[in-house]
């Protein structure tokens, strides 16, 4: 099996593009990613296109209509918030298997405003409020309170995640929201679903990101060695059975299983990472994932955020991009945008937020739908 390398990647600034189609946003991201590597669409032998909310729209074909209809195989991918990373992994697998020398992954989403709607159960019965809540913030608030019940994690500790990530966003021109939010402001902002306030929820924005993956041979042949990154792990898991799944979708065990496999595949551990981009769809989620990814021991997530370990300049910086809390969270684009952020650091092109001498980084996304299931994808990348 050959190694796969990330040779080109970019994202459009996440934001609101009411007058542009999803395909147009995706096409812009594809051209940016090709330009990043000095490539043409004619160099691409397969396309993996991710969108969750428009899963039936042949998004990959729509994008190639914009940038060049080369007739290559296109696979359209939907996997909740893991959609973009799932598309990226398909490109990695195809290259590793030797099927293609160069593949493109693109993730796109155009989001509505407000709470995401989810597919319903029994026809005609509207369960929201009658039987708990199907809203995404409620789901991640349940998981946060579970952690609080076990370990005494506080509302203030959860809120500090938003303070940190919003601070990071002030260094990222591609984030949707770029402003400091002091702790008092985060805690006093509108309560959405206790303990997540409005400033502790990711923002629904439009976005697109794209990446080009190449085999080692192709990378060398095209002279792309200098800025290429080795993909040391590319892992996808679905939710394993957990006893609580009838009440709340699993985001913890699915991440733990994925992390274990990713560390095995990369033959390294959390201590070897220079930075992490993880799925902070809600502030409560970030603390859970510190433990799920092994960045600290069980029950230590609260003290990790208190100690500034995961802030810029800390020993294990997390979500230097500003995270989903600041960048915004266009579902299908998020997984590739996370990879874009770590690629900037590993190429030493991250400007004001650069992690000094970054060598190895991990990206994590996990998506799920109440009562249905979840998907987690983790990538480990290395500067050669």
């Amino acid at each position, binding site marked *: 099996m050959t190694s796969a390398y990330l040779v080109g990647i970019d994202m459009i600034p996440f934001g609101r593009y009411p007058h542009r189609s999803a395909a147009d946003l995706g096409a812009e991201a594809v051209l940016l990613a090709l330009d990043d590597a000095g490539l043409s669409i004619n160099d691409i032998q397969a396309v993996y296109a991710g969108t969750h909310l428009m899963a039936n729209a042949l998004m990959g074909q729509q994008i190639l209509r914009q940038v060049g209809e080369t007739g290559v195989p296109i696979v359209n991918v939907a996997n909740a918030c893991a959609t973009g990373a799932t598309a990226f992994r398909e490109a990695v697998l195809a290259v590793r298997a030797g099927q293609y020398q160069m593949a493109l992954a693109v993730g796109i989403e155009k989001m509505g405003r407000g*709470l995401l*709607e989810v597919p319903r*159960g*029994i*026809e*005609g*019965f*509207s*369960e*929201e*409020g*009658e*039987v*708990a*809540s199907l*809203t995404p*913030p*409620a789901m991640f*608030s*349940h*998981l946060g*309170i*579970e952690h609080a*019940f076990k370990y005494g994690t506080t*509302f203030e500790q959860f809120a500090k995640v938003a303070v940190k990530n919003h601070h990071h966003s002030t260094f990222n021109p591609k984030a949707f929201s770029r402003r400091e939010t002091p702790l008092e402001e985060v805690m006093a902002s*509108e*309560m*959405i*679903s*206790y*303990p997540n306030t409005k400033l502790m929820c990711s923002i629904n924005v439009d976005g697109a990101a794209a990446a080009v993956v190449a085999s080692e041979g192709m990378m060398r042949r095209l002279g792309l060695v200098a800025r290429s990154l080795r993909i040391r792990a590319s892992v996808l898991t679905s939710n394993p*059975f957990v*006893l*609580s*799944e*009838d*009440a*709340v979708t699993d985001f913890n065990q699915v991440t733990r299983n994925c992390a274990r496999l990713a560390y095995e595949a990369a033959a390294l551990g959390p201590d070897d990472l220079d930075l992490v981009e993880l799925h902070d769809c809600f502030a409560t989620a970030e603390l859970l994932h510190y433990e799920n990814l092994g960045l600290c021991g069980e029950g230590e997530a609260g003290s990790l955020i208190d100690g500034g370990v995961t802030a810029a300049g800390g020993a294990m910086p997390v979500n230097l991009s500003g995270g989903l809390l600041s960048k915004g969270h266009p579902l299908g684009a998020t997984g590739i945008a996370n990879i874009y952020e770590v690629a900037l650091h590993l190429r030493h092109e991250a400007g004001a937020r650069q992690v000094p001498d970054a060598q190895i980084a991990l990206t994590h996304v996990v998506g799920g739908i109440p009562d249905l299931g979840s998907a987690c994808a983790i990538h480990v990348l290395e500067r050669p």
Partner: protein
Amino acid sequence: MTEETFSSAFDYIKVHPKSGAASLMGSRCRSCGTVLLGARRACPACCARESLEEFQLAMAGSLRSFTIVHRSYPGVQTPFIAAIVNLDGGGVLKGTLRNFPADPMRLSRGLRLRVQFAPTDQRDREGRTFVCHHLEAEPAL
């Protein structure tokens, strides 16, 4: 005009079509002992086939987690408490906790809860009233 006047809001709730009397329907795996809500084709935990048997879930349990929902979908009255309860003897159930103050300080781990059923104000296509469960705190002894 149908004689049936009640129907179930979820496939894990059994509702008597005439009286509206309801109960939780669960399954237990003979191979691995897993208890879950409703029925499945095979055990989701150990994958054994033809090992799930109907299991009477308890109508009481202890609070596993909660959230107080302040922002919900349009038309849904807020705030309300969404609670998750570990049922005595197995099974995990979510429900709205009614008649309890929406105060996080009052919602402690292990709080004793019981499962109640009531007709809702929603009807299915045949005009039958949906019956579903909610949660209430057990009265202090």
